[in-house]
């Protein structure tokens, strides 16, 4: 697998939900090679010490897009950047979704920021000849990502202010291929309904390249592996969901 480290100019950003933005970066090699479910590790200088991982949202020409939420100083800084600045971009990293040809239907189930890998997943699933159902859930209508890509599109909100009243998992139809991304408790619910689902999960991450062992994912068979290297995509039934931290608190002090 090829890996690239590049200074990627930030050329555009657009708001897609109440606190959710898509940022476009020029990173030609990554744009040409990234698979759905892979991520890039972005670093700012000056900025936080460690890079931050972002699923690649879309790849268009020589650009990649990442989805981000205003969760910490790093992401706030990225959003505040003018369009003349660059970020250090390392990627593509991790193992993406395995989209086997010969299947007929796929359902992409996302919660909140978990929509991040779905446009690429829709692209790759369509390219493999699958019919794609897009199911996206959020707390409230304002939090739903305004962009979607599916042959059928279902929105769900916890408070019922838009679409299905309830979770994305509850709203989703069955399909031969289930791909999911969202908060870890949501992915635990995915695992209960579809043990064979492919889920992209989020952990705290140090290096992104497999050496720091900081992004440990507890496995049902015992032990840990690395979200950055063996993941971030897992067979839902393989993860010990009870031992995976359910919420990530990015400290404002970092």
């Amino acid at each position, binding site marked *: 697998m090829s890996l690239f480290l590049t200074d990627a100019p930030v050329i555009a950003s657009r708001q897609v939900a109440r606190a959710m933005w898509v940022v476009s970066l020029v990173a030609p090699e990554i744009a040409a090679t990234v698979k759905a479910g892979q991520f890039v590790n972005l670093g700012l200088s000056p900025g936080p*010490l460690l890079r931050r991982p972002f699923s690649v949202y879309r790849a268009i020409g020589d650009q990649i897009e990442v989805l981000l939420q205003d969760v910490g100083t790093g992401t706030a800084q990225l959003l505040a950047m003018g369009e003349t600045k660059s970020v250090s971009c390392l990627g593509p990293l991790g193992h993406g979704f395995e989209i086997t040809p010969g299947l007929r239907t796929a359902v992409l189930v996302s919660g909140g920021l978990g929509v991040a890998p779905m446009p690429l997943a829709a692209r790759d699933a369509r390219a493999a000849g699958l019919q794609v159902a897009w199911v996206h859930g959020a707390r409230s209508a304002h939090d739903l990502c305004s962009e979607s890509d599916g042959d059928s599109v279902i929105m769900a909100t916890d408070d019922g202010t838009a679409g299905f009243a309830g979770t994305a998992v509850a709203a989703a139809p069955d399909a031969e291929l289930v791909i999911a991304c969202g908060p870890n408790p949501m992915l635990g619910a995915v695992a209960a309904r579809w043990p064979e689902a492919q889920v992209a999960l989020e952990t705290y991450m140090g290096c992104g390249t497999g050496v*720091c062992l900081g992004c440990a994912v507890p496995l049902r068979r*015992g032990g840990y592996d690395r979200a950055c290297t063996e993941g971030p995509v897992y067979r839902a039934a393989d993860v010990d969901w009870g031992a995976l931290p359910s919420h990530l*608190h990015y400290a404002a002090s970092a």
Partner: protein
Amino acid sequence: MAASGTFGYGTEVPLLDRRALAAVISKGIFLKPRQGTAPPRIAETPSGMLNAIGLQGPGADVLIRDYAPQWAAWDFPVLVNINGESVSDYGELTARLDGVPGVAGFEINISCPNVEQGGMYFGNDPSAAAAVTEAVRRRTRLPVWVKLTPMVADIGVIARAVESAGADALSAVNTFVGMSMDINAYRPRLSFRTGGLSGPAIRPLAVHLAHQAARAVDIPVIGVGGIMRAEDALEFLIAGCTAVQVGTATFVNPNAIAAVHDGIAAYIATKGFASLAELPRYLPRD
């Protein structure tokens, strides 16, 4: 050189221009496989990071089978960072690895609790640190380095103790023990509660301790602690170190070691020194 725990077993880090490597120190290893600690294992702090990985590793047998054969083919040495819960553990691990092609030497991690002595850390006690060093020294003629912990009252005492016990060099220093609280969950950010602090946050502390160690002994001291750039490495070298290890910087930039290496070379050339050996060292022997 690459600091232990930040470079895996040398096979993982992509992109690095490997001509910059004088040596690699492997991820710390015990005799037996270890799963490591539960997540969260890392937490970023101002200019640094806390980690509590728990020395996850495959154990000596897998290291010998899977990694050492690869090391044997490389043109830079790989030293194995060794760990144990008792003096005899360290000795047994050394005996197992000594003579294995690809194993070029040992770096003893003395920041481990001594289970036989009620969990007291080897590195905090001059006699325990010396006992571990002797146990390793007796079982190998390869280079034996000792990685010193900063969590001591007088690092010079420990440095002299392990020098007398047969250490060939010292790595100074390991991470500082720290803690950070999650103010929303009302508990530590790391599942292990405490972690080792690394990164630029510890650099002035590490320069000071490396300097104190260098003043205490005649063997080489290898500086380590928060080196991100060549200028940082030069601080350790001027403070009396013979070489440096780069650690956390590799997490940020996989090619950091090469950047540090090339920056030192450029500095030496700019200053008009023929080699690094001509760099003035600040080592008053008062």
